[in-house]
């Protein structure tokens, strides 16, 4: 499974949203994820890939795609 698919899985489980409505262009707000869903999703993704996504970075994400790209970059850095 790609990183994108894995993250979709995590977000859909935590925020109780259907995976099919999560798109790269979509925002957490449109997905009706609240701030607790978001922080729990970030923590779960951090743990899955053993990376850190500080709030200072997360605040720059404009949509789900930015989130995925950041994680992909961090995962690649780890090699």
């Amino acid at each position, binding site marked *: 499974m790609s990183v994108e698919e894995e993250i979709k899985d995590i977000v859909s489980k935590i925020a109780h949203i259907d995976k099919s409505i999560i798109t790269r262009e979509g925002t957490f707000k449109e997905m009706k994820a*609240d*701030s*607790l869903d978001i*922080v*729990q999703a*970030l*923590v779960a993704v951090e743990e899955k890939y053993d990376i*850190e996504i*500080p*709030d*200072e970075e*997360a605040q720059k994400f404009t949509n789900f795609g930015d989130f995925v790209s950041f994680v992909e970059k961090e995962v690649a850095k780890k090699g």
Partner: protein
Amino acid sequence: MKPLQGKLALITGSGRGIGKATALKLASEGCDIVVNFFRRREAAEKTVEEIRALGVRAELVRANVGDPAKIAEMFDFVADKFGYLDIFISNAASGVGRPIFDIDEKAWNWTMDINAKALLLCAQRAVGLMAGRNGRIVSISSLGSKFVWPTYAAVGVSKAALEALTRYLAIEMAPHGICVNAVSASAVDTEALKFYIREGLVKDLKQTTPVGRMVTPEDVAGVVAFLCSDEAYMIRGQTIIVDGGTSVAPFAPMIQKGDG
């Protein structure tokens, strides 16, 4: 010699806000500091620099105190780097601002784990590191533990648990030479306020606090530092309220305005 020279404090959530003010206050008294943060690395790194500029040692440890495994790692870090601990400040807090009927189990557990359970697990680990060192534990609470604030139920209840736990810890830890208390504040001018308040509340709070200004992070930090001093040795299991008089004079603003 400064009063806390040679001592070490671990302060949860001390990258910013009240935790940061407490870190800087204890550091100014000569204390070495372990700064714990969760989401805001940049802020925490800046805090570490500010502490080091005061001439003491400062280390940074990331940990979500809502996760027992991460608490264990945080204390392992302190044990490896220093091998001892003198002061533990349970300051980190999180929570969901929701009316009672919107608090689901996930929100409840998140709030309780970070705000109340973390103190239990941290205190259990701190005991070993404080052996023979006359340790201090101070937890940071809020007046929402006793008074009802809108959308504050989950956090308020977690703070009530924190205060009760502080009393039990004080008694059960006394034989270990550890002195445990809490500091409780009314609304403090920090970022946390943004989550709970309506526009203009800060201005209103200034006017309605009997002292005539809001409580600052430094006000809270000063009382925490006092509880870590020799003078506070016989204070045990207490929750010291820092609120500029708000809780003893709830009707003062109305009377002053002449509405009564």
